[in-house]
């Protein structure tokens, strides 16, 4: 049997950071990832933060990957952060850029296929120098212990041994389950996130959001777009796409199930969002059925090809770098020439093939995933024997205000786990007392752990300041009082101090309620919001069309087994599975796994595994 010092299971941002850090410390480590390539299974919102904590130290992305700031495998640096309260065509907007910048060196919008792909390249190059590396397309099936060493069994390759294991296998951690290190997360501890990637040319994004080439915007939404669920919507600008999504308390969805895609659809239908995402879209004219068959075929090919050219050329024309490249390649002499060619193609399509150019929007990818709420589910002691749990696997996600932080937390965890393992290797001591405890202690010292436990009064002040201009009387008696009280520094300090003694978690049901996410924003929008009108009606793809657009490597065998087809939970899955994999058949819930996007929403009452190596969904954006 082959033997390695360290095996990291899972190649998301957390696992990759652990691999990179161990290699930085000259330790040999291998990382096993089920997806065909690192990045193909991961999905986020998302904004990657680099934290500048008031107290203590965090290990940030640029600390682990020194090339990060030069290569910037990211989308846009977020410079604008707006919160919108919505009610039908009314929108009330607050500028929360200060909340976004709070204790942050930066926050970049990211797409995980690209970001994790870049992390993997960096990490594997370092790891190879230590005799390790990344093994992708391999799914870990079970762990056993033989003489202190862990024997790791997979679906694809021969078992191998490791002295230490880092579990970075995400929110639906099989390692946590098979070892019993923690119980499966319950709906109260989780959020369900659903998002779509919308295509929009680079400079159109900049014009529309009023941002420069090196800038980005984030827009958050609460109010009627939530369809009365606890949570909200987001829209982040990427380089030449937008991430539009919804993140909701899973228990809130459990209580009154809505199909997850309807929550994204509600967001898209909001006039402000509709205006943000709109673009010019080519719509093919029906081909005349009276034409000879060959002629029909020829026309169909010609139109498809021309539309493709039009799209590509238009994207290039609206991108500084792409325009430059086209001119440098000698294909075009000037920008005007590209424009002329674009006009020509468009004219050709319109006059020769009757193609219409309409205002609509274009979706590129649909995806979903559960997100752990660290306040409610972070593992107190994130280890089991010689396994250290990091990132989502340890339940360490942060939700404070509208900010979601999981990527940066996972990176910090990964580094801390790597440091603990490196010390264990030096001392040849992989015991829980030594390795597990030292990791646990380090996690305890992490500023992120504090964020999961306490309210930060300065952070709270930003929200109160942002809401200063809101006439207090309209937020109803209850809230007006709170606002007035909290606006005073002393009182706020006292109140927060008191709340923290009482326990953050005890306060949560009050803070995270339908009132705060739904009723107050609706009231705000109705009473003080400005009117926004959409100039078109977005053609929203059906869920079947969204699934058809996704890439899968189908597995004949299902990775999920329904345990009790009659349970109330499973019945709710018929509505709550984002890709409608469940249906009712004669009183029983049945599963068709083919369209599964591995979000984990059904994991609690199923025998839930990730698909075998390379199988299942393959995200192109993430």
């Amino acid at each position, binding site marked *: 049997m*082959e033997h390695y010092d360290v095996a990291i299971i899972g190649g998301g941002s957390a696992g990759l950071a652990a691999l990179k850090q161990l290699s930085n410390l000259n330790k040999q480590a291998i990382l096993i990832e089920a997806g065909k390539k690192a990045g193909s299974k991961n999905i986020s919102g998302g904004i990657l933060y680099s934290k500048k904590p008031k107290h203590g130290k965090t290990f940030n992305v640029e600390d682990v990957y020194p090339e990060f700031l030069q290569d910037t495998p990211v989308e846009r640096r977020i410079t604008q952060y707006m919160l919108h309260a919505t009610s039908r065509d009314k929108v009330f907007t607050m500028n929360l850029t200060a909340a976004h910048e709070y204790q942050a060196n930066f926050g970049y919008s990211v797409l995980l296929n690209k970001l994790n792909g870049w992390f993997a390249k960096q990490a594997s190059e370092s790891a190879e120098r230590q005799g390790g590396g990344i093994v992708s397309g391999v799914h870990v099936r079970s762990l056993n212990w033989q003489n202190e060493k862990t024997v790791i069994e997979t679906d694809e390759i021969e078992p191998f041994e490791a002295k230490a294991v880092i579990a970075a296998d995400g929110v639906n951690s099989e390692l946590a389950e098979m070892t019993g290190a923690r119980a499966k997360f319950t709906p109260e501890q989780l959020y369900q996130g659903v998002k779509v990637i919308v295509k929009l040319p680079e400079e159109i994004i900049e014009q529309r959001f009023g941002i420069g080439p090196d800038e980005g915007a984030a827009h958050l939404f609460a109010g009627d777009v939530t369809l009365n669920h606890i949570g909200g919507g987001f829209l982040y600008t990427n380089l030449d796409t937008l991430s539009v999504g919804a993140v909701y308390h899973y228990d809130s969805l459990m209580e009154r199930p809505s199909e997850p895609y309807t929550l994204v659809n509600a967001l898209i239908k909001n006039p402000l969002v509709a205006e943000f995402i709109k673009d010019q879209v080519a719509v093919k004219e029906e081909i005349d059925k009276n034409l000879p068959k060959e002629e029909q075929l020829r026309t169909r090919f010609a139109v498809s090809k021309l539309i493709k050219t039009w799209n590509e050329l238009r994207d290039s024309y609206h991108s500084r770098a792409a325009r430059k490249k086209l001119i440098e390649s000698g294909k075009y002499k000037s920008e005007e020439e590209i424009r002329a060619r674009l006009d020509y193609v468009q004219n050709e399509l319109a006059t020769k093939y009757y193609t219409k150019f309409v205002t609509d929007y274009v979706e590129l990818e649909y995806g979903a995933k559960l997100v752990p709420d660290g306040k409610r589910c972070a593992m107190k002691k994130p280890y089991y024997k010689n396994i250290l749990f990091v990132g989502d696997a340890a339940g360490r996600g942060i939700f404070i205000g509208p900010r979601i932080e999981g990527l940066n937390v996972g990176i910090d965890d990964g580094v801390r786990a790597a440091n603990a393992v490196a010390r264990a290797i030096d001392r040849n001591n992989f015991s829980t007392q030594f390795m597990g405890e030292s990791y646990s202690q380090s996690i305890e010292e992490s500023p992120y752990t504090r964020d999961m436990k306490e309210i930060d009064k300065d952070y709270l002040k930003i929200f109160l300041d942002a809401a200063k201009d809101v006439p207090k009387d309209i937020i109803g008696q209850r809230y007006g009082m709170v606002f007035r009280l909290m606006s005073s520094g002393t009182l706020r300090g006292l109140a927060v101090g008191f709340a923290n003694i009482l326990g953050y978690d005890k306060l949560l049901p009050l803070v995270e309620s339908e009132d705060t996410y739904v009723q107050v924003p609706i009231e705000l929008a109705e009473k003080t919001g400005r009117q926004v009108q959409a100039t078109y009606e977005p053609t929203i793809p059906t869920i079947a069309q969204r699934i058809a657009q996704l890439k899968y490597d189908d597995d004949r065998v299902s990775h999920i087994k329904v345990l009790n087809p009659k349970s109330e939970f499973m019945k709710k899955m018929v509505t709550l599975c984002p890709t409608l994999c469940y249906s009712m058949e004669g009183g029983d819930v049945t599963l068709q796994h083919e369209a599964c996007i591995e979000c984990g929403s059904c994991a609690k009452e199923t025998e839930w595994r990730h698909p075998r190596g390379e199988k299942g969904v393959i995200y192109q954006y993430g």
Partner: protein
Amino acid sequence: MTSTTTKDLNVAVIVKLEPDFSEGNVSYNADGTLNRAETKSILGPHSAIASNAAFYAKVKYGARVAVGTMGPPIAESALQQAQLLCDADELHLYSDRLFAGADTLATAEVLKAGVSKVEGDGKVDIVFSGHRASDGETGQTGPQTAWKLGYTFLGHVIDYNVDLQSRFVRAKRLISLQGFYDILEEVEAPLPVFISIDPSYKAFFNTVSQRLAFEKYQKEARSRAENYKQFLKVLNTQQLGIDPKLVGLPGSPTIVYKVERIPKAKASRKSEVIDGANRDQLTRVAANMYEVLGGMVIK
């Protein structure tokens, strides 16, 4: 874990540049013969599989790999494509006007000479070749080259492993015997051997170290193939040290009179469109299936 290319095992692959018969790339003349000028050329699919088999030796045993082809200068591209697949350490192009018109025997003479020019005195332990070429070859080049080299010939190999200590190769061959197809034969032979790889061969890497080596050599292959000319040697008759009488047309005893087009067989099947929503029609289909399968249907 194998980290560097060892001299413990030397392998060579013989490849061929072939017309791309895939749709959209192939072009025919009016008389049905191949229009070579219009048709794109690629590394032949069987050659690609042979290259994969050589890559397996590199990943698993750290073998040194040489790739050779006989052909005009554009055949270089076949070498480059093969290098991308097997991370070759050495590329040979056997190119000479004298080679024109060679049949399989004359080709074998060139390839044999080529193998002997592989770095390290031509001590090649395993020569891989594709099962056959797709552009009108008869599958004889392999056995003939093996015979000329004096190597044991193993055909239709779908899996192989080498014992570096005892210097034996153990191979699985897919054979057909007396009307039975797909019989698996396991054979053992001392090195050196000539292996012709079956089209159904698929390399499988089943340990962590092999997977790591796979990644590493694949990366190396990408960067090498970008600069393939650095690895390339072009050799003519003289450099190969062959008697001109044995190559090209003079060395080819085969006479091709004419290649007949095989007429398309008339299909005897009848087809009928069934409406999936029509219960009667479906019942009829099920009944027919039941009849044909002779009650083999379980449920």
